[in-house]
């Protein structure tokens, strides 16, 4: 059961030194109670107090790190509008050791190629899972070594045979793979392999009751680096289980389930598989292991997780400057938009498609779209002209024509009057830019 701020305060040194970054011990205690601070930042807490406070000070879901910078867990809310989600769902693609060597290297090449650029962001798939489907320990170790040699991505090694795992993990311990799975039958051996190699371990059981039993037994072995797998099942029941795991850890501070959750998809058909995975991206999986590795399948899923893990309190903005698209000259057209990144990149994408080298200025509207900015008085003609001057546009361009978004056609006359420029009203939606550009001389 979680402690209140006052209960925590009683255990603190009460020096009010401020070294933790919070001015008083009482304020620090309140922050601990809310899960917004870590006890480690207090240099003077006694060991006895530390032990008493551990359950209250630890985050409700432990952060588990593995491989090449992958972090799972450490979430604090049920809904992103309550604060934010912190660590994007880790996407891992599986490779079976039952494939031939050629098939393994082809699959790995495809996985390594999963790098995407869109709207100024870069997405990469984080990990590769080697799965011991051959049942052969030597084959598993060989494929694991080959995959490790062929990618820098985080590794996941999956076998329910402890001997096979042990042989595969030992030479790769420096890569800090995530290993699994420990189940009711083999957990002692598998958890010990994790412990010996200092790598995190997946605990797998079907259903919450069995999972809770397994976690308690595994913790009793003196290890805490765990990731939970509630078993593969139908989408509705999986959603219910994932919701319960998150609720129990966040709302009830149920320590047994205070670990990140990994899910293996059920579907074989790639479209259905991605659709299934999208449910778990929304609702509470920290990592998802997929079979498909086609670009067209991964890009939409990567976009969804990136979108949902953006901080709702910070609109994503682009820098207010003069952007040159293509080989611009002093005769190139000039478009004005806003610095809300989605607006800017929609416009940029379309301007690029016109194949006419052009300039774009995203006016600083504090990260709001055209209509919102105009409604809030952040898109006035004076501001637009001021920005154009500040960026030196009158010296850079030979012409005096500026294209404004169709939604703010009403500023045309005023902008013309104060700037002396010819104001051209562009389309309302960026999707109209290509057709619009054809009408430009």
């Amino acid at each position, binding site marked *: 059961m979680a402690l209140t701020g006052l209960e925590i305060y009683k255990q603190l040194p009460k020096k009010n030194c401020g070294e933790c970054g919070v001015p008083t011990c009482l304020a620090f205690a309140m922050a601990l109670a809310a899960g917004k601070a870590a006890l480690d930042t207090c240099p003077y807490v006694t060991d006895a107090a530390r032990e008493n406070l551990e359950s209250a000070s630890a985050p409700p879901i432990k952060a588990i790190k593995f491989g090449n910078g992958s972090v799972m867990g450490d979430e604090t809310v049920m809904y992103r509008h309550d604060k934010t989600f912190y660590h994007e769902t880790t996407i891992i693609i599986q490779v079976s050791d039952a494939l031939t060597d050629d098939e393994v290297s082809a699959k790995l090449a495809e996985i390594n190629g999963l790098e995407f650029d869109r709207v100024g962001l870069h997405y990469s798939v984080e990990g590769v899972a080697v799965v011991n489907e051959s049942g052969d320990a030597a084959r598993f170790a060989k494929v694991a070594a080959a995959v490790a040699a062929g990618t820098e991505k985080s590794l996941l090694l999956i076998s329910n045979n402890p001997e096979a795992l042990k042989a595969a993990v030992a030479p790769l311990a420096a890569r800090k793979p995530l290993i699994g799975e420990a189940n009711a039958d083999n957990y002692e051996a598998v958890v010990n392999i994790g412990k010996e190699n200092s790598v995190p371990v997946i605990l797998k059981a079907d259903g919450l009751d069995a999972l809770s039993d397994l976690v308690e037994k595994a913790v009793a072995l003196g290890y805490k680096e765990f990731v939970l797998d509630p078993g593969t099942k139908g*989408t509705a029941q999986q959603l219910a289980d994932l919701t319960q795991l998150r609720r129990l850890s966040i709302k009830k501070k149920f320590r047994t389930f205070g670990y990140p959750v990994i899910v293996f998809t059920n579907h074989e058909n790639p479209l259905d598989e991605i659709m299934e995975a999208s449910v778990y991206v929304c609702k509470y999986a920290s990592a998802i292991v997929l079979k498909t590795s086609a670009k067209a399948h991964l890009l939409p899923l990567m976009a969804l997780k990136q979108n949902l893990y953006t901080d709702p309190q910070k609109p994503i903005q682009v820098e207010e400057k003069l952007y040159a698209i293509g080989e611009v000259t002093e005769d190139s057209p000039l478009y004005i938009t806003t610095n809300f990144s989605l607006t800017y990149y929609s416009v940029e994408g379309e301007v690029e498609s016109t194949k006419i080298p052009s300039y774009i200025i995203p006016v600083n509207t504090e990260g709001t779209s055209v209509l919102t900015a105009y409604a809030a008085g952040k898109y006035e003609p004076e501001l637009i002209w001021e920005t154009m001057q500040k960026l030196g546009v009158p010296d850079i361009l030979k012409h005096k024509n500026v294209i404004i978004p169709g939604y703010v056609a009403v500023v045309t006359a005023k902008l013309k009057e104060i700037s002396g420029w010819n104001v051209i009203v562009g389309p309302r939606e960026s999707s109209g830019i290509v057709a619009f550009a054809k009408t430009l001389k």
Partner: protein
Amino acid sequence: MSVAIVKERFSGKIGEVILGATSEQGGTRTSTVTIGGDAALPFLHFEGKVNRPVIAMEVNDIPPTWNETLTKQYGDVFNSPGAWAKQCVDDFGADLIYLKLTGADPDGENRSPEDCARVVKEVLAAVGVPLIVVGCGDSTKDNEVIAAVAEAATGENLLIGVAEQETYKTYAAAAMVHKHTLIAQSPLDINICKQLNILINEMGLPLNKIVIDPLIAGLGFGIEYAYSIMERARLGALGNDKMLAMPMFCSVGYEANRTKESNSSADENPQWGDLDDRAVLWESLTASGLMQVGASIIMMRNPAAVKVVKKNIDELMSV
């Protein structure tokens, strides 16, 4: 050890809205569609009643300017709204038809309100499912179009729209007089959403004749804003805020298909992979994200995506 699961106790629920009317009810539909009535967060059956989201496929009164990745999945139907609607229902399993009267656009074909009403009648005659009917997007013209359509389809209990803050009066009056249900649209703003519902309700349209359109954004282009607004609205409704407790309509097909990701070929963007599957998933995942926060009516365009989404709904509804 058995784990005690956490059930939220909600005092409110989503209002139930019925679309369409059979002959006994004064219309000509062979069946009606019921949305809303949910007493839980989306698809959490252990918590309370969950109603099935429905799919409304888009039909236009004039041939669409859609990408070939969509059009090649349809037969030779784009010159006949009735045949187009029939294919959506018979072949693709649409629960509803979303008829957008694009041809009314004064900058386009500028069709008359009477022509528009005739197309609505044609589609009503071709299919037995309920209809959603919206204008072309030009607010002045749409006022006339919707009045004519509402009258021509009196008693059919169409879902008509879209009523916004500035224009809701005509729509609400048309819905009341001719016995239809109304889409009330607010621009991703929970306060405007509530206020508009209150204003429409004060005119005399009952709350169970209103559907919320939160004006969503597509995957990759701000879906997270819609996601959070809708999740807050759902929680508000379950917390017994009656002015937020209407089922939600999401124009998924429109938003998903105007993105570059749903239109740019693999030749143009090799890094993004095959266009056909990418476009299917762009629309499917836009739907998926919004269904997880309470979408009741999913408007769609891509038949292959409809198949993926329906299968997902089947799974999420089976316990």
